[in-house]
């Protein structure tokens, strides 16, 4: 194991000498962000290698407008809001789900299935499932919607904020952040979409895309592969997480997502409106759409808290460059979502990175 790490480290050193310029690698997965910090990999990389955390945390990329729509629902006494735990503390203009749950009932669930069960158990209320997450999570929502349709659970609906990673990578490379030389691609998203899906980024933007696991040795080997590709000029698509990820991904999951959802233009925190980047329910399942049912708009929101999560998510600044970081904004009193979520970049810097 140690020799693999040392070997990878040598490859990175050699490649960097050959390149003789700074190299910027972005990871687009919150679990990678935490794994990289935890492993201390940053401290053994040459100074010329810069690791950036991109829009890889689903709660963080959720636009303020969506958060406001969720918070609007808390003012209704006929709703029961079912949400993954991470969402509950994201601040809106007047508070968070946790503090605003005055009329509506707010329950933390671990699965879309639990939300559907809540609807069956509470026929007098409408259960709104706060459906956020990337390609990894969307299939679970799709299954619940299909089941609701099949079993006529009409008091169930979802507020879909599901996001797609590849359109966001395209948006970054199309002008938002052209410093990015390569991507460490998200492992669990790749389980669903298959590593082949990143081929379009490699072909069109000539950036290495390497899917890696979450162990320190897997991460450093992925980084070594990226540096080697950059030095040799042979840009490629590669997965070194072969124990879990296949080229085609989980086709059963892809099929059910395609049946239930269609990609539409959507708003991201920091990245703005990205074409075909958000999953909305198809016509056939529209009656389960909470936006329609409650007349909510999916529009860009305003955040005037001074939080710079948007720039953090695009890799334009590191969290300590935000004046609120570790002063007004801490995990106990988060000002922005990147500090709320355990996968958030600001939270990871707060916990592991302040001495970096």
């Amino acid at each position: 194991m140690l020799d693999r790490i040392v070997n990878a480290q040598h490859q990175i050193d050699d490649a960097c000498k050959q390149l003789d310029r700074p190299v910027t690698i972005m990871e687009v997965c919150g679990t990678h962000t935490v794994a990289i910090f935890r492993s201390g990999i940053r401290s053994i990389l040459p100074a010329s290698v810069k690791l950036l955390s991109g829009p890889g945390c689903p709660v963080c990329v959720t636009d303020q407008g969506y958060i406001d729509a969720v918070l609007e629902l808390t003012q209704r006494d006929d709703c029961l809001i079912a949400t993954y735990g991470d969402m509950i503390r994201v601040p809106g203009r007047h508070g968070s789900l946790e503090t605003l749950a005055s009329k509506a009932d707010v329950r933390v669930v671990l699965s879309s299935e639990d939300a559907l069960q809540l609807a069956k158990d509470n026929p007098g209320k409408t259960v709104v499932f706060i459906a956020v997450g990337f390609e990894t999570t969307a299939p679970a929502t799709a299954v619940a919607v299909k089941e609701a349709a099949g079993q006529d659970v009409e008091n169930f609906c979802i507020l879909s904020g599901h996001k797609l990673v590849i359109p966001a990578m395209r948006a970054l490379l199309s002008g938002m952040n052209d410093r990015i030389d390569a991507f460490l691609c998200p492992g669990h998203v790749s389980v669903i979409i298959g590593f082949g899906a990143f081929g379009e980024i490699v072909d069109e933007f000539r950036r290495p895309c390497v899917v890696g696991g979450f162990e320190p040795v897997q991460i450093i080997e992925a980084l070594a592969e990226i540096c080697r590709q950059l030095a040799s000029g042979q840009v490629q698509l590669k997965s070194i997480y072969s124990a879990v990820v296949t080229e085609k991904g989980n086709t059963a999951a892809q099929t059910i997502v395609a049946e239930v959802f269609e990609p539409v233009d959507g708003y991201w925190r920091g990245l703005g409106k990205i074409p075909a980047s958000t999953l909305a329910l198809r016509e056939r399942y529209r009656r389960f759409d909470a936006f329609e049912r409650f007349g909510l708009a999916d529009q860009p929101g305003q955040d005037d808290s001074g939080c710079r999560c948007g720039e953090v998510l695009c890799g334009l600044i590191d969290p300590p460059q935000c004046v609120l970081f570790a002063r007004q904004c801490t995990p106990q009193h988060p000002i922005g979502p990147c500090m709320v979520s355990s996968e958030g970049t600001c939270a990871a810097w707060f916990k592991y990175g302040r001495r970096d």
Partner: protein
Amino acid sequence: MCLAIPARIVELEADKAVVDAMGNRFKAKTTLLPQARLGDVVLVHAGFAISLVDEEEAKKTWELFAEIESFEKTPNKLSG
């Protein structure tokens, strides 16, 4: 919340499974992984098995997960 946990299928009836991760047992569905069988180690995310995992990989991820979970137990986090 993007976390996926490897877990072994210890009970399976149609698409309803009980899985075991490091001694913790919980329910998961195999709707998205119809090829999953009793005894398989699968990656579970948001209550669904999403892929098969080999034992070696599972062990490594269990170790990482133990650490992230302890991170999540700090007061700033409600489980998700």
